[in-house]
């Protein structure tokens, strides 16, 4: 615990990279009545202090499940069968639940999609912010209130004294998301996980929210894990991008590299399917086939193999590749 606080408080000097979160070979499955779902397999990545990492993938890629695993809020049917998650040197998988409760909200925070649904509908937003503060920092009542109002101001909500008393249904989607950000950042966490924070919001609100998260993150040298299906969004706001497909990490690289030179065929197709880049409809690439059924016992080592137009024979026989030059990792035997 103290280790984490030390790392979180440590101001970075130029060019310094401190690994805050290390996920190694994480393998996770769900017991369901129709079989065991192999949700994640050998997932590895690192997140550095002050950095924004984008976790990009479509629905079913396992990105949300990964975030729940980090926070240890997985569904009861989920089991981690291999791998490790280290946060500031602390092994999260072996930590006690009481330690996790200490961490959540204080050093590890999360914001969710559908902000209006994620907030408590029958409690004023100011009170919800105070709840987090109360849990982690004993303060007097009037201090709590002024901290909450200050936080509302920081997240750029107009008229924060009045909004303190408002209920979620009285606020727009964008405002609710700002409140969630206020709750998440109330105790200045070292790591913020943002799970599709702008899905469902208008495009102009989306930009405002992401700018806010970026600004607040930079001011606190906070690490951000941005989970999204929107590659364009990740491209704009992230320093590095990790692409996931069907529970595997298929590529991971700094933003510019991955967009200019995607090496995994899936990444390339994903980039091609963004309407922004295309000149005409025909240029939009579609990704053929469907996600493999993750309940199958005989999944090939590369789960993209059946949809891939560059597959080789050895994709069936050799275990999943991991070609890594330290900067750019691609899990493919035949990268572009």
């Amino acid at each position, binding site marked *: 615990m103290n280790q984490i606080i030390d790392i979180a408080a440590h101001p970075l000097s130029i060019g310094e990279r401190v690994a805050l979160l290390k996920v190694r070979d994480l393998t996770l499955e769900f017991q369901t*009545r*129709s079989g065991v*779902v192999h*949700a994640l397999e050998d997932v590895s990545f690192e997140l550095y202090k002050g950095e924004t990492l984008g976790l990009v993938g479509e*629905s*079913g890629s396992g990105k949300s*499940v990964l975030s729940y695993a980090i926070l240890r809020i997985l569904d009861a049917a989920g089991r981690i069968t291999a791998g490790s998650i280290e946060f500031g040197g602390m092994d999260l998988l072996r930590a006690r639940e009481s330690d996790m409760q200490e961490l959540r909200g204080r050093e590890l925070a999360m914001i969710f999609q559908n902000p209006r649904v994620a907030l408590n509908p029958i409690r004023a937003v100011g009170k919800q912010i105070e709840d987090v503060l109360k849990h982690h920092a004993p303060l007097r009542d009037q201090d709590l209130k002024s901290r909450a109002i200050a936080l509302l101001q920081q997240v750029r909500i107009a008229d924060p004294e009045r909004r303190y008393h408002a209920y979620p249904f009285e606020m727009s989607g964008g405002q609710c998301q700002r409140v969630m950000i206020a709750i998440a950042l109330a105790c200045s966490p070292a790591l913020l996980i943002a799970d599709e924070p702008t899905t469902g919001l208008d495009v102009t609100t989306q930009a405002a929210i992401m700018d806010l998260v970026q600004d607040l993150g930079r001011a606190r040298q906070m690490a951000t894990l941005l989970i999204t299906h929107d590659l364009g969004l990740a491209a704009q706001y992230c320093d590095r991008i990790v692409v996931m497909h069907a529970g595997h990490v298929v590529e991971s690289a700094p933003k510019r590299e991955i967009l200019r030179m995607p090496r995994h065929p899936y990444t390339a197709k994903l980039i091609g399917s963004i309407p922004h880049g295309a000149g005409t409809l025909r240029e939009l690439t579609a990704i053929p086939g*469907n*996600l*493999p*059924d*993750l*309940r199958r016992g005989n999944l090939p080592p590369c789960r993209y193999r059946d949809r891939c137009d560059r597959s080789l024979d050895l994709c069936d026989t050799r275990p999943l590749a991991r070609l890594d030059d330290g900067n750019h990792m691609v899990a493919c035997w035949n990268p572009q």
Partner: protein
Amino acid sequence: MTTATIAAAPKPISHFRYVVSENPVTAFAFALFGLFVLLVIFGPAIAPYDPLYTDNAVAMHPPMKGHWFGTDSVGRDILSRVIVATRLDFGIALAAVALSFAIGCALGCCAGYFGGWTDRIVSRISDTIMAFPLFVLAMGIVAALGNTVGNIVLATAIINLPFYIRVARAEVNVRRNAGFVEAARLSGNTDTRILLRHLFPNILPPTMVQVSLNMGWAILNAAGLSFIGLGVRPPQAEWGIMVAEGAQYIVSGEWWVALFPGAVLMLAVFCFNLLGDGLRDLIDPRRRT
């Protein structure tokens, strides 16, 4: 998580087996229900004695070989009477619930869908019924209309209306602006058709739970009315009457006259309560995979 490769629809029987296997309580409820259905159908045939046959020689005998539930004050076999009463009690309850369901759902659906005056009138009717202590209201209806089994059915149906009206109205209200209702309008559906073919089938799952709970309650209601002397008349075999007859003998130690009909009554109500959830699982297509 999306599972993109989705299997074809499982057959109804394997789904039934799945529902039953997942929840042993539901399995028990279905088994018990099956037993009751058998009694309803074959009751009179399998009862060891004629339920109306009196034999003073064996009056007030505790349970013994040949009379497994004992005999009552005029020597009738209690087991036989309990078995035969199943048909009557279930019949009353089924008729009452069916009537209540049909009228209540129709009213509730219209109220939920059209709103406005329809909603106001139906809701006030419902509120008026609910303002009375329901059992007292049933008593009053039977007393006013005449002391027959038919009127018990009617009374039970009337006091049950508000529950169906409420459930139907709420469920229709929620779905009234759903995408598929708008799409149905675009496909040329009139309001009537939307109510009948789009909304009603989709409100069945929650209503089914209500129906099952209601069956139990209706049986209890019918038995209760008979217990106080309304509706079914002696010497007909009916659980409520039998409990009434046996009540006077409990103090003097002849416990079996009231206990067995009471216990079977309790089992029947219990069975329907458990059945509600199982029925909903069966009917709701979303739960089918």
